[in-house]
């Protein structure tokens, strides 16, 4: 009776090996390892990893939405929201704590995304992508126009403090590195918990077949709305952290090419493993950095070829290399 399927074929995806206490331990272990490695690394490398972690957070939000079957092409808007909020809070309100600014960035992004979430939860496929793209470009246009926010040049932000302490000259980069990867690790663990929770699994079901979920009593719209808000929080958090390390914010954060890169990282990572997101983000930064150095005239060509290679040969993303499961 070949028609009877073995249980494992119909069972939901096996829980990721890195969930529960094991997951927390692995996460903390990774953090400790990175912290030690960062102490000995050259500054350009810690900066690269800091930016990868901040960008990775945005892509984590995208993965959250991708698990539900939609791909947002406008996370740049939330990245910019977080970044501008942190920079404005620093400059205009005199609020300088790094952790507080990061949180402020995340919350601001949520507040900006909230009115659009119910609207966006009705869209799918290319239209979801296009509407998010249009919204992020409107934001870009607004940021370019508003002189109060620096116009097209953007503006600078000074050095943040941490828990009331001023950061010493010699170790600023390392401390911001620790803050960023610390927050990234925390969010990664929370994401893993969320993905394995009821709503996270419902999201996976939505990706597979929405109608069935509705018939079984789940609310697709609610799941998508909440996913969008969470993605917004991650985006804003990433934006604030990025701006603190860069010291500069500009409208380009909201441009469609920035959003496109976040989507690429999410696709490179695949939607199964959380660690893969940060790994993918680091890979993209490294490729970009070295193409610039070795191919100053043709770095776009190098980057484009890399993108194609990844999309072609890693159809389910990096995560599929170590995660197994009956997922598509």
């Amino acid at each position, binding site marked *: 009776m070949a028609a009877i399927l073995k249980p494992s074929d119909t069972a939901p995806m096996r829980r990721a090996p890195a969930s529960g206490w094991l997951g927390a331990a692995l996460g903390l272990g990774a953090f400790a390892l990175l912290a030690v490695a960062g102490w000995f690394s050259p500054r350009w490398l810690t900066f690269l990893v800091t930016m990868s972690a901040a960008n990775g957070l945005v892509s984590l939000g995208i993965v959250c939405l991708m698990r539900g079957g939609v*791909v947002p092409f406008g996370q740049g808007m939330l990245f910019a929201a977080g970044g501008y909020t942190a920079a404005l809070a620093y400059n205009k309100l005199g609020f300088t704590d790094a952790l507080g600014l990061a949180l402020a960035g995340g919350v601001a992004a949520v507040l900006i995304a909230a009115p659009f979430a119910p609207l966006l939860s009705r869209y799918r496929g290319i239209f979801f992508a*296009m509407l998010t793209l249009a919204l992020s470009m409107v934001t870009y*246009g607004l940021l370019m126009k508003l002189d109060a926010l620096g116009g097209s040049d953007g503006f600078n932000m000074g050095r943040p403090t941490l828990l009331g302490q001023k950061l010493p000259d010699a170790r600023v980069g390392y401390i911001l590195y620790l803050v960023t990867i610390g927050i990234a690790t925390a969010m990664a663990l929370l994401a893993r918990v969320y993905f394995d929770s009821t709503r996270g699994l419902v999201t996976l079901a939505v990706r597979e077949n929405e109608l069935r979920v509705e018939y079984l009593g789940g609310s697709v719209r609610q799941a998508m709305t909440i996913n969008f808000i969470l993605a917004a929080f991650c985006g804003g958090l990433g934006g604030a952290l990025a701006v603190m390390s860069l010291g500069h914010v500009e409208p380009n954060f909201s441009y469609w090419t920035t959003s*496109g890169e976040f989507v690429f990282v999410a696709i490179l990572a695949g939607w199964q493993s959380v660690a893969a997101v940060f790994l993918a983000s680091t890979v993209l930064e490294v490729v970009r950095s070295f193409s610039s150095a070795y191919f100053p005239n043709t770095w*776009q060509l190098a980057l*484009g070829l890399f*993108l194609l290679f990844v999309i072609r040969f890693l159809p389910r993303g990096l995560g599929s290399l170590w995660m197994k499961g009956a997922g598509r």
Partner: protein
Amino acid sequence: MHTAATILIDGLTYASWLFIVALGLTLVFGVLKILNIAHGSFYAVGAYAAASFVGWGASLKWAPALSLVAMLLAAVAVAVVLAPLTERGLLRFFYGRDEVLLVLVTYAMFLIMEDLTKLIWGANPYYVSEPYGLFGNLDLGVQSWVGYDFALVALAVVVGVAVWWGLNRTRQGKIMLAVIHSAEVASSMGVNVSRVYMLAFTVGIFLAALGGAFTAPMISVQPGVSVGVIIVSFAVVIIGGLGSIEGAAIGALIVGLARSFAVHVVPVAELFSIYIVMAVVLMFRPEGLFQRTQARRI
């Protein structure tokens, strides 16, 4: 004096340019379901090819009027060379995958083509000036328009009618419509779907290159010309409905007239008026103004 006539004429000339440029994009999406970000790059290659072809024509001492023929041939050459290469060599591997994944593939294509055109043609600007003066001027009060702009209007009409006729009145066209409606069913009825894809993609690239070729006399062809075209074509195509020719025409007219009005009467509004229109259309009629309602497949 900003007369209504001026606003209308400007709207019309800009809309024609938009239509020629955006038509290929909507056709490719309609048939292959690929939103081609590299559309701007094919436009740029068309412009460069036109520069080369017109340059060769000039060195062969052709009459200036024949430069128009040269531009047409350039667009054909681009389509015939690049379309099979791209479609067979690249896109074919990604059919059936998520639509957004294909967008990223085309984004990679855009990056690659930017550097390839720079490697082939160099960074120096090319000028294709012979055709621009062919049609004289049209003076109306304080205004003076170049006849070439109106020639573009004629070209837009010809191209639009030709594509419509090709889709609706020829056998190949009707097969293509069937594939647009459902590739699966068409295939099960014996249609060679991959050949239809190839044909649609070739026509789409031809139209993009045609847009670039006929724009070349008005600009300096240099690295970076592709970027300005991408977003504006997207807006037109989204407003009109992906895959709809009438939609592309109406979308182009709306964008053209809105922009003309903004520039003449409220110049400050120009920058993001197009994105706002795009967002509003997406919010209220996401399938565009001309998309037929589609049955949801379970």
